[in-house]
């Protein structure tokens, strides 16, 4: 079976999304064209606008189209508690669990020497500037419990220690190797409440 060129390119575009195989991509394409052209138009517009306009928060590097993300711009968030995460998806997971009222720093990755990502490539200088310039009392390290997440947490804990800031690490109720994004809200709540001071090594 061969599709018309426009239809084929639509199917291929859907197929490029994570978790979408050929079958699902075809179903999505048919759905948009046969039953929901209006919804498809909204999707196209939203995609276009987001890709054009969404960048990174100047302060925490979370995704936003404004200079500051809604969390950094919210005066009610506790600026003395800074949670360090690897990705914007981690921010979303923590926000959905509703367990944290401080602010974030989004690393957009982790230290991974074998991939050529050291402290500089990860932009840890920006975090160091925040620790020196903002009145942060506690840094909560919520990087993944992979070896890279752990190495990142330990590097940052040294940095924060140098800056005289208290450092805690969330306690995972999951085995080593877990990625925060895939942890459920309940486990995340336990992980936050059970966070422990770092530094006595």
């Amino acid at each position, binding site marked *: 079976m061969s599709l018309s060129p426009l239809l084929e390119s639509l199917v291929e575009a859907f197929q490029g999304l*994570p*978790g979408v195989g050929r079958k699902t991509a075809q179903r999505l394409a048919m759905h948009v064209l046969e039953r929901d052209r209006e919804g498809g138009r909204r999707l196209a517009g939203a995609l276009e606008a987001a890709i054009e306009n969404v960048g990174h928060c100047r302060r925490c590097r979370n995704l936003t189209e404004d200079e500051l993300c809604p969390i950094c711009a919210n005066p009610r968030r506790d600026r003395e508690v800074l949670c360090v995460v690897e990705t914007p998806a981690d921010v979303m997971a923590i926000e959905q669990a509703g367990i944290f009222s401080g602010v974030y720093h989004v690393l957009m990755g982790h*230290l991974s*020497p*074998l*991939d*050529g*990502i*050291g*402290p*500089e490539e990860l932009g840890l200088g920006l975090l160091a500037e925040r620790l020196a310039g903002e009145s942060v009392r506690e840094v909560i390290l919520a990087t993944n*419990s*992979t*070896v890279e997440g*752990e*190495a990142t947490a*330990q*590097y940052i804990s*040294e*940095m924060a220690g*140098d800056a005289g800031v208290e450092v805690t690490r969330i306690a995972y109720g*999951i*085995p*080593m*190797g*877990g*990625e925060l994004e*895939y942890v459920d809200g309940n486990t995340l709540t336990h992980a936050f409440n059970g966070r422990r001071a770092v530094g006595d*090594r």
Partner: protein
Amino acid sequence: MTRVSDQPAYVLHRRAYRDSSQIVEVLTRDAGRIGLIARGARKGRRAGRLEPFRPLTIGWSRRGELGTLTDIETPVTVPPLSGRALACGFYLNELVTRLVDRDEPLPELFAAYAEGLHGLLAGQAQAPLLRRFELRLLEVLGYGLLLDRDARHGEPVQAGRDYLYRFEEGPVPWDGSETGGLRVRGETLLELAAGRPGSTGTLREARRLLEWVLAQYLGPRPLKSRELLEPYRRGPGSAISST
């Protein structure tokens, strides 16, 4: 198609592949360093089983360049590496991935690697441990260092004398010139040869020698994991550690 089972292995590195899979670089006992695809490794029950620094027993099937991981067992549970030992672990993995080609069976390397990790977990002094590993790695790869004899006349290296270490040759008595090699003291060479570098504070020189030799094989791209050791080196009492 080849099938292998019950093979002792360590994960050196893994990177995301497609939605939820990983390409895993492993060091095996009998097959050397190989690349395997681990399907569904990032989610569900299998998540986290492919972390580096854990002794594993694995199985795979293979047809081309990359095999497919079919089986993972964790025969023993070891605590995770942390702190400086974790940074050292990354250093071992980076050295192996940078210097060892895929599909070269090197059982001695596997033994040296396992011993190194074990030492890190046991809290052994890290700098001498890393030097011993570097020496053994070079030896396994056929680049073993001449340490106890003079490269020119074959005379025993003596403590209290200075030498010029020539790359891929060995030490020659130092005659005041610094060109064509690296200046080292006799005791540094002897301690390295005896497998106990650093017993009289020569660790820093030993590190410099190995770093210099390794750099010739590694080429211009520096080892990234060294940067993870930097902040620790600034800490109290760390000036003498020379990890």
